[in-house]
């Protein structure tokens, strides 16, 4: 995987399922100042990424699953590994479930939602078993769709009102920080760096630049989307619209073109598959490390059907909300743990693998 592909890989994993309801989630947490929270969250994620890269550099040629037992010892290390594997599979399930729900809500209200699962099943079996190079190439290819998505958001300014976001900073810092906290789940995807870091050919250059660029671009994308939605919907109406992005696009009528939301969502579905493949790959890598001598291919064949069983949890808003809540808390542990590990490693000055 080249550095460019690493950039695309991280960016695609970050921009995914969360986009559609991100403005709503932010508004619930931070009120009208939610758009500032994004910048804050983006900066925090950048900081985390710096630490991740520093951690990975201490163990060149090894990924998280491999260096974890070296840091924490066999038992504890493997327990943490299991937790990470669980996280990746759990997020895959959640993404699949949310995709199912949103497709039914917005695109195909009469179609059997299991077909979404079936389609994803085929894609995952086909893609996630491949090497990370193949996946990263796919990610690089679909990166360009991001431009299309942003362009679609910029087709209508009729209902725009900048006064909706004024006055700036009315909720104070607590609101902004609360918003940053709740937007972390939408930023998720950068932790995959820990899994793929071993496969990056840096050719002597730093791994940091591409991942920081990826995160900055993801932040910018979220920022544009959220700000546009905040300026299009009054603060009073936003709590009533759980998916503001397609709702906003639904109202745009271009010459010869209506229902822009359907086009946007079709592009968005491609993004979601990219996220899904990345997570599935990471999960498969975990099980592959234990049982199949690092061959994740074998694990994918039985993991994908298991993840697809998540479809049975479908059609209950309450259940999905609960899963999202779990994902939120669990993710904080997942993204926070490497920071502790780094401190631990740094203090004990542990190094592993072949020196660079």
């Amino acid at each position, binding site marked *: 995987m080249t550095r460019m592909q690493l950039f695309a890989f991280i960016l695609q994993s970050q921009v995914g399922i969360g986009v559609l309801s991100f403005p709503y989630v932010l508004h619930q947490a931070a009120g009208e100042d939610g758009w500032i929270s994004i910048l804050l969250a983006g900066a925090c994620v950048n900081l985390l990424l710096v630490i991740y890269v520093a951690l990975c550099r201490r163990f060149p040629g090894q990924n998280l699953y491999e260096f974890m037992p070296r840091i924490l010892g066999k038992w504890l290390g493997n327990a943490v590994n299991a937790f990470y594997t669980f996280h990746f599979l759990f997020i895959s399930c959640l993404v699949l479930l949310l995709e199912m729900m949103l497709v039914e*809500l*917005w695109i*195909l*209200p*009469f*179609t*059997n939602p299991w*077909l979404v699962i*079936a*389609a994803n099943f*085929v894609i995952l079996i086909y893609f996630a078993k491949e090497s990370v190079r193949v996946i990263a190439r796919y990610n690089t290819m679909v990166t360009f769709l991001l431009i299309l998505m942003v362009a679609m958001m910029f087709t209508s300014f*009729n*209902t725009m*009102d900048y*006064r*909706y976001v*004024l*006055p700036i900073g*009315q909720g104070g810092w607590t609101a902004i920080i609360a918003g940053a906290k709740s937007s972390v789940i939408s930023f998720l995807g950068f932790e995959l760096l820990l899994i793929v870091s071993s496969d990056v050919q840096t050719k002597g250059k730093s791994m940091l630049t591409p991942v920081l660029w990826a995160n900055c671009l993801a932040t910018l994308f979220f920022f544009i989307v959220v700000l546009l939605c905040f300026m*299009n*919907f*009054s603060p*009073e*109406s936003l709590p*009533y*619209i759980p998916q503001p992005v*397609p*709702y906003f696009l*639904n*109202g745009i*009528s271009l010459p010869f073109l*209506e229902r822009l*939301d359907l086009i946007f969502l079709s592009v968005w579905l491609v993004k979601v598959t990219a996220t899904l493949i990345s997570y599935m790959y990471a999960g498969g890598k975990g099980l592959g490390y234990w049982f199949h001598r690092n061959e994740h291919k074998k694990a994918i064949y039985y993991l994908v059907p298991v993840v697809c069983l998540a479809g049975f949890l479908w059609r209950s808003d309450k259940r999905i909300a609960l899963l999202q809540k779990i994902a939120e808390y669990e993710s904080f542990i997942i993204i926070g743990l490497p920071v502790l590990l780094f401190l631990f490693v740094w203090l004990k000055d542990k190094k592993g693998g072949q020196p660079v």
Partner: protein
Amino acid sequence: MNRLAIFGLTVVFLLSGCSYHSDLKNLQLIYATSLDTNEKNEIVTTVTIQSPGGKERTVPIHEVLSASGPTLQESLYKKIGLQIAGPIGTSKNQVMLISDKLARSDLLNLLDATFRNSNDPMLAKVAIVHGEAADLIRLNRIGSATSGEYLRKIIKSAQYETVIPYVTVHSIYPLLHDRGKDGVIPILKRENGRDGETDKDKAVIDGLGLLNKRKYSGYFLTPEQASLFLLMNNGINETCVITRKVEESKGKNDPSQYLSLDMVSSRRDKKVTVRSSGQVQVQIKLKLKAIVIEYAKNNRIDKQLVDQLNKRFSALLTQEAQGICKLLQKAHSDALGIGRDLMAFHPKEWKKLDWEKAYPETEFQVSVSVEIVSHGIIN
């Protein structure tokens, strides 16, 4: 393995179409919907349905159906759905007409079924009808268009001419929630012609209904006022022609007293301030640039006359604009979005303010200045 995969893929792709299919040819497409109320306080829905028809290229057949029920869902989707042969298709709905009686109830509650469904056409144009809304649906064909298409075109052309704003089911929903701004909805009415052949009944734009929060206040702007209001609020859409009587002379009414101006650009400055006593003060300065398109008086338009006309027209429009603001206040309709300005620029004062009470006492200072920039190819 490979063969199995190929077989599996083929099955998934070919058979997924069997999961659900709704053929366009069977769909009974609703082209216009109207909502009335009857003496039992039920909602009476009237729709015009057009089926795509057979292979022959014939004029589309349309029929009018009506049903009543306690809610929109009951009366429209269920009861009308039962009356027609084939599945009901709402995706082509062009206009959503609401009778003025019904519009005085909570619109958010009334239209909930439409807002809630992503498959319903969010771009259907919303209008209030003075009188019975179903009367407009029952209009006979005008030209080649069926009533749904006809009504949509009427509304569209009025939008083009800056008489009414762009109001759809989609745009009205966030507005009904908005605390800082009240919506406006175009008003249509049926005008009876003399006979069925040469002078048919038709629909005309009757102005702009002012909403008070989620309800129609009952007050409305005439089409002339509506144009000026839109200039004050949004600006020119495509064209905007304003004709006023600039000369008063007793007894006679003749074309030479009128001046028609085509507005080419508009600039609006709005300043909202709050006095220490809590009174809100609004200053609106509207600057218009215009082209003379009709001034039938046998006069050469020279610089002096232009100045004179500028002054006269500005004075007329200023007076009218003040009248509009008075009417908005009387209707308790904050259609200019003053509340939002207060929220954005004077958040502290806004918190202390009881907008319900303060709005009618708000002081409006409006001035319109017109500048004639061109007078066509003759002087």
